[in-house]
């Protein structure tokens, strides 16, 4: 285990999409318990800096591993299929039409209930897409196809953030 190990090595977890969240969380806490700068407060500047680097690295890996979409993107990258969303903007027409319909629904929704209904629909869609992603990565090992799915899910994720934002506005 080194500072430049990949996230899965660092956390001692199998290199796959499906993960046990409880094991991931437990490993994160165990690693932080060893490397957190608080453990080295009285050990001088050199130890502080090393601890800081490690704690940052462990948090970075944890953030990436616990988020299914970022974990999938990372696996695609490790397997030679980088996401590069800005270079790969082509999306199927069906997908784009659905995106537009959702956007329109959000514009028209003016009650908390309406926005929450839309939220449930989109979240359900996201869940389905993640299940497909799991099959693409863990079963079919089709990383280029998985990368395409990740790109599509990035749109969905952004849209869910917009819904959240709207809920926040309506909630105030």
């Amino acid at each position: 285990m080194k500072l430049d190990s990949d996230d899965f090595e660092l956390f001692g977890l199998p290199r796959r999409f499906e993960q046990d969240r409880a094991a991931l969380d437990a490993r994160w806490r165990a690693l932080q318990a060893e490397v957190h700068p608080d453990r080295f407060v009285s050990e001088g500047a050199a130890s502080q800096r090393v601890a800081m680097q490690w704690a940052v690295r462990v948090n970075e890996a944890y953030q990436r591993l616990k988020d299914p979409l970022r974990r999938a993107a990372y696996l695609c990258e490790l397997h030679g299929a980088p996401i590069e969303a800005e270079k790969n903007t082509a999306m199927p027409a069906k997908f784009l039409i659905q995106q537009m319909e959702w956007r329109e629904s959000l514009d028209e929704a003016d009650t908390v209930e309406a926005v929450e209904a839309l939220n449930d629909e989109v979240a359900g869609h996201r869940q389905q897409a993640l299940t497909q992603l799991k099959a693409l990565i863990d079963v079919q090992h089709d990383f280029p196809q998985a990368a395409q799915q990740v790109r599509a899910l990035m749109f969905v994720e952004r849209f869910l953030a917009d819904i959240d934002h709207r809920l926040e506005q309506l909630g105030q």
Partner: protein
Amino acid sequence: MALLQISEPGGAPDPHQRRIAVGIDLGTTHSLVASVRNGVAECLPDEAGRVILPSAVRYLDQGRRHIGHDALKEAAADPRNTIVSVKRFMGRGLADIADREKLPYDFIEAPGMVQLRTVDGVKSPVEVSAEILATLRYRAEDTFADDLFGAVITVPAYFDDAQRQATKDAAQLAGLNVLRLINEPTAAAIAYGLENGAEGLYAVYDLGGGTFDISLLRLSKGVFEVVAAGGDSALGGDDFDAALANWALGQAGLTVMTPEDKRAVLVAARATKEKLTTADHATLACPLSAGEMAVRVTREQFETLTEPLITRTVSAMRKVLRDAKATTDDVVGVVMVGGSTRMPKVQHAVGQFFGKTPLTNLNPDEVVALGAALQANALAGNAGAEELLLLDVIPLSLGLETMGGLVERIIPRNSTIPTARAQDFTTFKDGQTALAIHVVQGERELVSDCRSLARFELRGMPPMAAGAARIRVTFQVDADGLLSVAAREETSGVEATITVKPSYGLSDDDIARMLKEGFATAEEDMRARALRESQVEAERMLLATRAALDADGDLLDAERRAAIDVLIQQLETLRAGDDHHAIDRGVEALATGTEAFAAERMNRSLRQALTGKRVEEV
């Protein structure tokens, strides 16, 4: 001053030597200092037996000042020179201070942070806070008849970078070695959690004199993980006082003009509010320059007119649950912190929101200081200290200004600290050789709606076509929640770095000037003080390095060992001299020279701690 016990040269320090470490709650209305004694955290009383130090500083002529109870007594008589609730001005510009025309101070607009004109000259909120901190430091030193190893100081979770940096500056000015800044709700959770062996998801509702925090923490076996934090750094008991005062003035058909009147009404409003905690009605009465004022108010009236303030806290609670993707059912318990949570209406609203009775069995005034003391004791590495791990988050997103005044978020709110994140940018124009970097904090899309933290420039890039440059901007937030930003053009290697401080914080020169101008530590000569601090740091570094060599010296071959021994020898020699700059350089040389060794030690300890264990066992 934080001094280690210095042993005879060659003699080993006593491993059982206790390091005196304290927790300080630097509050809006009052402050406390606590420490762990005989395994128990307790607040330290002053010579009159009082643990609470009112956060009030009264400046008199000829550099004299009153701090705490003595200052508060004169607040109504001498409002302009008696600074209370100074925490609300920390890291804030004049425009940030709501209701400033209702406050009795003579504010001065200054770059980054507002200042106050007093009979003793212009004071920065940092200086005023440092007076309070120094008073608590002396109290602790008198209690233990010893110098302090260091302090953990608490800040509201919702404090932004400017407010945190200002707090750290104040501690430095007060001669405190800051072991860590921690968030108030986290400190409260430590005190509550350790005491009660709490496990699961807890909410901490912290309504103090001037700030409101709501944090969700997951507690398990000495680990305190903040899942989400939110709040309002300008909402507290003071606002309840102000609302009541305004209403009462309206009822009496009066407008106050003089600073004395302003302070008198606020003081009376606060007393009335406190009476209404147990009484159904009370009379807000005080003498004003225009005559005597007396307005009867019922608890119901008070609750109606402060309803909007409580609603704001409810919105914040909702937002934090949304951030944590949790529901009120997931929350096992709600810990109440801060004197303002004594208001029955507040307890009722929180109870109703979470569907469970809030936990009020702790002293809401003391719990934050007690938690900070427990963490300070653990950080000092004292034997018998509880094994604590704090995994805290940044409360507000950090980002950069991009084209069109939009914010590009680099580190999202609720990221666990310490953290670092890099993002690549490019140039907009052909032949562009410089790039202006504007660092902002906040959740809004537009730069103008966020707080500006710092501006700096990356200069001297080779001219390239628009879009050809690769500029990597790295944000790093340390364990105190403080930010530093670095920018580097990858093809040419041009770099620029900034610790996000100069645009609002105090420069080292400012601090030197304040110390010279007779701050509370004036009895010490500036240079002697700097020298002593450098010597202490050198001693600390030498001790740590020797301990590391004893433990893991076998990692080094003879050549590397010899190189480190030379650095140690050099620092020993420098330490005996009186050039504090040279000592600082020696400390830095030893730190740099042992960094690779420290990294290898970390690898070894990780291997020992974690390998062999399968994931399920961890």
